[in-house]
C-alpha cells in the first residue's frame, strides 16, 4: 500500500491549478486590466485630496432648522447638513428622543430606536383607520405578486433555503396585530366580568 503524495497546504509549493494569464485573457474580456493596484480607484484607501471633491468651502454653511434636531451624543456638534424627513412626533418620537441619550455603543440606544419604530408603525396603522385612506394590507404588502409573479413555482421544487422559514413571515407581519387583538379581548372580558 502506497501513501499518496502530500499536497498543498501540507507542503509548501505545489502550484495552483490555474489557467495561464493568456488563457484567462482570451476567455474573460478585460481580465487583469486592474491587476496593478495603482489602477484600482480605492488604492490606497486614504488619499488626501480636499481640492478634488468639488467642495468650495472649508466648512459647509449650516442648514437652518437646527433647533431640536436629535443627534448622537458621540457627535461634538450638530452636523451642518441633515435630513428633514419624518421629524420626531408623538409617543414614538419620545421613545426615539430618549434613545438619543445613549451613545451608539450602547444596546439601549438601538433597542429603544427599534421599539420606537414599532410604536410608530402601530400608531400609524391605527391612525390610518380613522383616515380617508386606511392602510390596505393587500396592496401595501404587494402580496398580489404571489399570484402575478409565480409565487409557488418560484419557490417550491427549487431547493431554496428560505422556504424553511417562509411560514414565519406572516407571523412577523400579522402576529403583533393578532396578539394586540387577543389582549384587547382579554381586557374587555375582564372588564365585563368585573362589571357584573
Amino acid at each position, binding site marked *: 500500500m502506497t501513501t499518496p503524495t502530500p499536497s498543498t497546504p501540507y507542503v509548501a509549493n505545489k502550484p495552483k491549478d490555474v489557467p495561464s494569464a493568456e488563457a484567462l485573457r482570451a476567455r474573460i474580456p478585460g481580465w487583469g486590466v486592474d491587476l496593478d493596484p495603482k489602477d484600482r480607484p480605492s488604492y490606497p484607501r486614504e488619499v488626501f485630496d480636499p481640492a478634488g471633491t468639488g467642495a468650495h468651502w472649508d466648512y459647509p454653511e449650516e442648514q437652518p432648522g437646527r433647533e431640536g434636531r436629535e443627534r448622537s451624543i458621540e457627535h461634538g456638534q450638530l452636523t451642518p*447638513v*441633515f435630513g428633514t424627513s419624518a421629524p420626531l412626533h408623538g409617543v414614538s418620537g419620545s421613545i426615539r428622543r430618549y434613545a438619543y441619550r445613549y451613545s451608539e455603543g450602547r444596546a439601549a440606544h438601538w433597542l429603544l430606536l*427599534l421599539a420606537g419604530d414599532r410604536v410608530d408603525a402601530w400608531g400609524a396603522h391605527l391612525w390610518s383607520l380613522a383616515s380617508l385612506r386606511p392602510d390596505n394590507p393587500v396592496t401595501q404588502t404587494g402580496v398580489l405578486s404571489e399570484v402575478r409573479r409565480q409565487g409557488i413555482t418560484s419557490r417550491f421544487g*427549487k431547493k431554496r433555503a428560505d422556504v424553511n422559514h417562509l411560514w414565519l413571515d406572516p407571523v412577523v407581519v400579522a402576529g403583533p396585530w393578532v396578539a394586540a387583538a387577543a389582549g384587547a379581548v382579554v381586557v374587555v372580558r375582564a372588564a365585563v366580568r368585573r362589571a357584573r
Partner: protein
Amino acid sequence: MKAMVYRGPYKIRVEEKPMPTIEHPNDAIIRVTTAAICGSDLHLYHGLMPDTRVGTTFGHEFIGVVEEVGPSVRNLTRGDRVMVPFNVYCGSCYFCARGLYSNCHNVNPNATAVGGIYGYSHTCGGYDGGQAEFVRVPFADVGPTIIPDWMDSEDAVLLTDALATGYFGAQLGDIVEGDTVVVFGAGPVGLFAAKSAWLMGAGRVIVIDHLEYRLEKARVFAQAETFNFAEYDDIIVEMKKTTDHLGADVVIDAVGAEADGSFLQQVTGTKLKLQGGSPVALNWAIDSVRKGGTVAVVGAYGPIFSAVKFGDALNKGLTLRMNQTPVKRQWPRLFEHIRNGYLKPSDIVTHRIPLEHIAEGYHLFSSKLDGCIKPLIIADAG
C-alpha cells in the same frame, strides 16, 4: 409629488408628498427618471434598521434631471442629466478630504458610525430617497455627476451603488494574479464583485448562493464557477475540497444582514431582530478563506451586535476589510470599463416597474419571485 412611503415592516405605499425644497445653498432638486430597489432596501422594508420612520421614502440608487439648484451650486444647471452616488457627503470634512466619502462626518447627526445615505433611515441621516418623482440632493457640487452622452440610463443607475459596490468589494480583497476568489451571494453586488475579480487578475472565481436562477446568471454573466449551498451538507467542506483543502485566497461577503443557511441565525437575526442581521455569509467567509487570507465585506449589516465567529478570524490570521463604498471614487475607472465593453451592468436588470406598483416590486424582490435579480423603478413611466 408621488413618492414611495414606508408604513411599517413589510408595508409600503405610494402617496402624494410635498415637493422637496432647497434647504441648503448647495442643494439641488432632482426629478428622478430611474431608480432601483437595492438588496439593502430590504433591510429597511423588513424593519431591521433602527430609526426607520413611517413616512420616509426609500431609494439610494437613482438618476434624474436637475430641476432646481441652490444659490451656491456651480457645477450643475437645470436640465442636466445626472447620476447621484448613494452617499450623501460634504467633500470637506476630515474623512471626505481623504477619499472616505462614505464616512462623511458632516451629514449625519444621528450617528457617527455611518455617513449619510439617501432614503436609508434616520440612522443614516434622515434623508428622503429617490423612489419618488423628486428628491433633494445635498452638496450638489460634490456628489452628482453629469451622465456622459454615450452612457445608457440603466447602466448609469447601477453605477450609483450596485456596480460600484461590487467593484469596491473586489478591491477590498486585495486580489493578486491567480488568486482563488469566493463570492457569497449572487445578487447584483455579488455578480458585479465576481465580474470585477476577473478584472483584478483572479485565477478562479466561485459564486455561492441558494437560488439556482441567480447562480445560472453568475455562470453566464460573470463566467464564474457556482455552488448551491442548499445542495450540500456543509458548504465549508466543499470550499475546502475545491481548493485542495487550502481555502480561498479571498472571500467576499456580498450578502449581508439577511443571509440564509442557518435557521437559528435567520430567526434571531432577521425575524426577531435580536442581532444586526444574520451573519451566516460572514461566518462562512471566515471559515472558507485560507489562513492569512482576506475577507472583504460589502454586504450591509445593522448597527446592533451580530454573532460573528471572530475567534476563527483571529486564529486564522485573517485580514478583514470592509466599508460602505465611496461611490464617486470608483466612477472614472468604471466609466472606462463600461466604455471598453468589459462591464455591461444593465445585463442584470430583470424587472422594470412603474412607481405606482412599487409595493409589488418590493415583495417580488424580497421574496425572489419570477427570476428577480434587479428591479428598476421607472418614475416617469406615465
